[in-house]
């Protein structure tokens, strides 16, 4: 299924917002969404939430024969799976452009930067090496899959423990975790990919674009870096023209973001380690928030309120004075419902009058009938006039002028009651 296209209105709105340096979720230009890193009960399983974007990475390993060209090096394999679960635009079983792009970027980010010591994965040179496989599955796509995938992959690799092996002569024994403690991979550095979205031919720049922003962007620049400020890969995509200065600026922003995220990953790893040591509960079941009835609840987004009152008063001052409103003398015909204009409550009064009515008897009733007849006359006349109400031409009959002006807006009965009262006086 193809993704539903974005309407022109929404597109214009998004671009306008970006031009005014505002984002839909209230972030600043260079802000990341909230990153949450959790680990599963197994080693090498990592769950990353980047706002609403959600990916899971699982690392596994097996003993295989090495490549002929590199007999003493372990093999790294990366795969990003875009499952249809994440977005209706993803199709099952077909290598889309996006999937090729993401896969290659992750490979470049983690394999070509040599962040993992592949030589330590060699068991018997030329015969047996560990093949480490990283599978990243997308669970929900709300934009910026690449950053989420790279964080998940490197966090899962750092969390992973491979089984220990023993070599006796020709024989290779793989020890289960109960026999010998599994061994962590040796990781030299943590490359993390940071995405920059460009809008309006590169005039505007945003960090961590969400799904909506990704749909209106002109191009994307992905910079993978580690905390030592070493660039591990750069990739531009989408048909944009970049200038050198923009690339330099992006690389500076990336270095700041990477150090923040690296710290976050280390903290998450540390928390997981302490939880495991203490024998506390860990894993997804624990980390997932209890979302039963509130599963669709959205977080309150912050709205900028700093200069709202000023702007409001500004608008009021600049606005023209409203035309003086003559209260319409229109009395609705009996039986026609009308929405009240918020007058003072007359319920109490009516009750009093009802009591009076009861006491005063028949006389009143006759008067009321007369009243009613009079009023019918007036209403008829006014109904004719009401067409010309816009031009504010109002012809008043002497009888109606005596009535309080706002009576017209109250209900029929109330008007009758009020006039009754006057007559009594």
């Amino acid at each position, binding site marked *: 299924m193809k993704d539903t296209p974005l309407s022109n209105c929404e597109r214009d709105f998004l671009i306008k917002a970006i031009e005014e340096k505002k984002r839909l979720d209230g972030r600043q230009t260079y802000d990341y969404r909230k990153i949450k890193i959790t680990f599963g009960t197994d080693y090498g399983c990592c769950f990353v939430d980047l706002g609403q974007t959600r990916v899971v990475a699982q690392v596994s390993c097996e003993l295989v024969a090495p490549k002929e060209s590199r007999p003493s090096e372990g093999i790294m394999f990366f795969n990003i799976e875009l499952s249809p679960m994440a977005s209706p635009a993803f199709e099952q079983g077909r290598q889309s452009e996006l999937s090729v792009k993401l896969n290659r970027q992750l490979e470049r980010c983690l394999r070509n930067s040599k962040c993992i010591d592949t030589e330590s994965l060699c068991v018997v040179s030329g015969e047996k090496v560990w093949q480490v496989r990283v599978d990243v599955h997308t669970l929900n796509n709300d934009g910026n899959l690449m950053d989420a995938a790279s964080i998940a992959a490197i966090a899962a690799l750092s969390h992973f423990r491979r089984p220990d092996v023993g070599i006796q002569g020709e024989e290779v024994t793989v020890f289960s975790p109960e026999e010998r403690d599994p061994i962590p991979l040796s990781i030299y550095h943590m490359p993390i990919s940071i995405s920059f979205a460009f809008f309006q031919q590169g005039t505007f720049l945003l960090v961590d674009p969400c799904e909506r922003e990704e749909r209106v962007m002109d191009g994307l620049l992905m910079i993978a870096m580690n905390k030592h*400020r070493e660039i591990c890969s*750069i990739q531009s995509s*989408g048909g944009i023209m970049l200038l050198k200065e923009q690339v330099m600026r992006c690389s500076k922003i990336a270095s700041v973001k990477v150090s923040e995220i690296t710290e976050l990953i280390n903290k998450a790893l540390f928390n997981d380690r302490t939880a495991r040591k203490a024998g506390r509960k860990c894993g997804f079941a624990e980390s997932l928030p209890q979302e039963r009835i509130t599963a669709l609840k959205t977080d309150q987004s912050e709205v900028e309120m700093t200069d709202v009152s000023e702007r409001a008063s500004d608008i009021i001052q600049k606005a023209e004075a409203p035309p003086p409103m003559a209260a319409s003398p229109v009395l609705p015909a009996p039986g026609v419902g009308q929405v009240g204009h918020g007058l003072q409550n007359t319920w109490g009064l009516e009750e009093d009058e009802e009591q009076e009515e009861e006491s005063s008897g028949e006389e009143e009733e006759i008067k009321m009938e007369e009243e009613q007849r009079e009023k019918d006359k007036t209403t008829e006349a006014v109904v004719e006039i009401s067409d010309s109400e816009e031009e504010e031409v109002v012809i008043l009959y002497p009888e109606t002028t005596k009535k309080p002006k706002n009576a017209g807006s109250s209900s029929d009965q109330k008007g009758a009651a009020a006039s009754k009262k006057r007559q009594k006086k």
Partner: protein
Amino acid sequence: MAGLELLSDQGYRLDGRKAAELRKVQARMGVFAQADGSAYLEQGNTKALAVVYGPHEMRGSRSRALHDRAVINCQYSMATFSTAERKRRPHGDRKSTEMSLHLKQTFEAAVMTQLFPRSQIDIYVKILQSDGGNYSVCVNAATLAVINAGIPMRDYVCACTVGFVDETPLADLCYAEESGGVSSLALALLPRGGQIALLQMDARLHQDHLESLIEAAMTACKGVSKVLDEVVRQHLQEASVLTRE
């Protein structure tokens, strides 16, 4: 670094070039009669053929057509005999799909696609011999082919790979240098405006060196653009001499 000295103390590289020197570029335009545009380009030992068809109406699924501009369709392939080890699949693996994507992206930025709404431009590139800098050679060859097809472009697109060894940027890497563990950067440039149509980098490089590397790549691209310009002018001259009679 595998015992190979990529840059000697005297400042010479493996093949005797200076650090900022390009390989010899030779090119011909209009090598095929059937295609709308074609070109053959050699850059050192890397040889590429590029063919352009279009702009023509959409083939295949019509739903891919864009109402406001042309779709660019690229296919990158490597001849099975192009590398030292015979290739099994000339195209379709992850790396060549990615390369096709990059080519497409580069030319989407450079070709004035908005002039041909609802149509398609096909660019097919084949590497006949591979000796490093495949991407850049493909881009350069394809640029000539697009010009040969008479499709308007904003500017020449010139591409070049640059490596970084011993604090020195090396222009236009050959295969030995590329595989020697150098951090390499491929850059496609529109030389007149200094706009970068594609930027791609592998391997580690400290942030402080990035600027000098991009600078070197841009200079190299400008060098390539001069050569390409000459080729185009010469081709035009030849063509006009032939058509005058």
